[in-house]
């Protein structure tokens, strides 16, 4: 799913960030919480066509550590919230229709449950990643901001015969993440403690009808809360009033998801990567694999199922630099310290505040993908040693 990526900026480029292009800013969209971000002192950056908070005055490092120690609130309203409603009124029809676009067991998803999924293309590449929820009489999808218009067209083209597809533009989406998230939300709505990871329920938060899922993208226990636009600021402010809660920007969202080993669409997965290359086999349930009840039947099935059987030529792996220097996305990876034998590329990299050191992920040739394999990344003309490492870098604390 989506987070912030600034990549590497020189200080000369930063000067442009400090004196932003006013015309560009005037074209950026605002989430319903935009004014709240400004009032909290956020530093705003363009992201996926939105003016978004990259950090608040405490900064990325403290925001990251606070989320792992207590709880953080994230504005993810830029992401697309899509309702897929079967014209027949039978949820099975919507599930089977969506299964033509995703290599996911949607039919087997119980009411009130959510699962991670991927839109694939005919070459087996990944068009986007998303969350899919069975809401009883319809499916509820959350897709990435940068892909949401294309996803909406893709859904209408793929499912329009059997389903009404609607992009919700009247709801905000806020994530509450961290070990104190449950206690904080319990003060607003006691029933939340009964929810398990990937459960979805409707709830009134101070008389506001919200849709709450026990999920997130930080590796921590937590919730994502879909809120009617008119009440978005009020509900978010109530969360922020809790002494355990801090607002968290896109900068820490990115370092949190990287430590958790989660993919950022556009960096770690895209149309040029397949689910098997991306080590996302777990997102393709047995029913959609060879020998399953509904094997194949999704775009790119031929290539993806062949890779299940034979393995992919390259694989997404964790990469742990040995020294203190961060290795950023785009760095080339080599088998030797002289940079003669290229074996891959870093797709996300930076500093992990909870790991207290540099961390990265990227794609390497299958022969070099085993945990512990020593490789070298090119950084500013030097070849820095790093090791293939198991993901995630921090223990996930989902309440299963």
């Amino acid at each position, binding site marked *: 799913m989506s987070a*912030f990526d*600034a*990549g*590497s*900026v*020189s*200080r*000369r480029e*930063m*000067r442009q960030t*400090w004196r932003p292009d006013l015309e560009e800013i005037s074209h950026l969209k605002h989430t319903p919480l935009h004014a709240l971000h400004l009032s909290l002192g956020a530093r705003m950056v363009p992201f996926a066509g939105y003016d978004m908070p*990259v*950090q608040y005055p405490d*900064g*990325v*490092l*403290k925001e*990251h550590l606070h989320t792992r120690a207590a709880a953080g609130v994230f504005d993810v309203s830029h992401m697309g919230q899509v309702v897929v409603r079967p014209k027949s009124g039978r949820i099975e029809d919507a599930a089977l229709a969506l299964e033509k676009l995703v290599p996911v067991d949607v039919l087997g998803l119980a009411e009130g449950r959510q699962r991670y999924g991927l839109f694939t293309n005919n070459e087996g590449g990944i068009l986007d990643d998303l969350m899919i929820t069975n809401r009883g009489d319809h499916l509820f999808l959350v897709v990435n901001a940068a892909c949401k218009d294309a996803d909406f067209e893709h859904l209408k083209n793929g499912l329009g015969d059997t389903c009404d597809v609607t992009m919700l533009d009247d709801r905000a989406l806020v994530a509450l993440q961290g070990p104190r998230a449950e206690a904080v939300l319990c003060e607003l709505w006691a029933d939340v403690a009964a929810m398990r990871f990937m459960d979805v329920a409707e709830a009134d938060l101070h008389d506001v009808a919200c849709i709450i899922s026990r999920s997130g993208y930080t590796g921590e226990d937590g919730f994502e809360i879909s809120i009617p636009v008119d009440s978005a600021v009020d509900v978010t402010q109530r969360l922020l009033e809790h002494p355990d809660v801090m607002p968290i920007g896109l*900068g*820490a969202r*990115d*370092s949190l998801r990287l430590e958790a080993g989660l993919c950022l669409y556009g960096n770690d997965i895209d149309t040029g990567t397949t689910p098997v290359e991306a080590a996302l086999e777990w997102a393709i349930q047995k029913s959609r694999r060879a020998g399953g009840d509904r094997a194949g039947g999704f775009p790119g099935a031929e290539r993806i199922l062949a890779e299940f059987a034979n393995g992919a030529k390259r694989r997404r792996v964790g990469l742990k630099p040995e020294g*203190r*220097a*961060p290795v*950023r996305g785009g760095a080339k990876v080599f088998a030797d310290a002289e940079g003669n034998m290229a074996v891959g590329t870093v797709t996300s990299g*930076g*500093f992990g*505040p909870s790991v207290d050191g*540099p961390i990265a992920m990227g794609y390497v040739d299958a022969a070099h993908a085993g945990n512990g394999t020593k490789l070298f990344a090119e950084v*500013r003309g030097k070849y820095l040693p790093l090791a293939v490492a198991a993901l995630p870098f921090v223990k996930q604390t989902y309440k299963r």
Partner: protein
Amino acid sequence: MLKFTEEHEWLKIEGDVATVGITEHAAGQLGDLVFVELPEAGSSFAKGDSAATVESVKAASDVYCPLDGEIIEVNQAIVDDPSLVNSDPQGAAWFFKLKLADPSAANALLDEAAYKELVV
């Protein structure tokens, strides 16, 4: 003599040696630093060359050599503890000392008032 660059470096010039660091404004904009890489003493740089690198959680940024010269000393303290750059950027967290090839070239840099105007 205290001088500044548009790339947010400061220079404290004594004779033909400039002590160079990044400004408080730059340190604030970069956020908490987690890694600093300094040049080797004895290396020479032209004005505008990347002489050092600072990294926050999110991004790597270059620190440019503000004038032509040779590095005669670097500050290991900020390599050992990059957070020093955030807490005392214009004091203890100097980056390197530069023996200027042409000390008079410093006259063309910004004075403190001009720099402050730039970052308002």
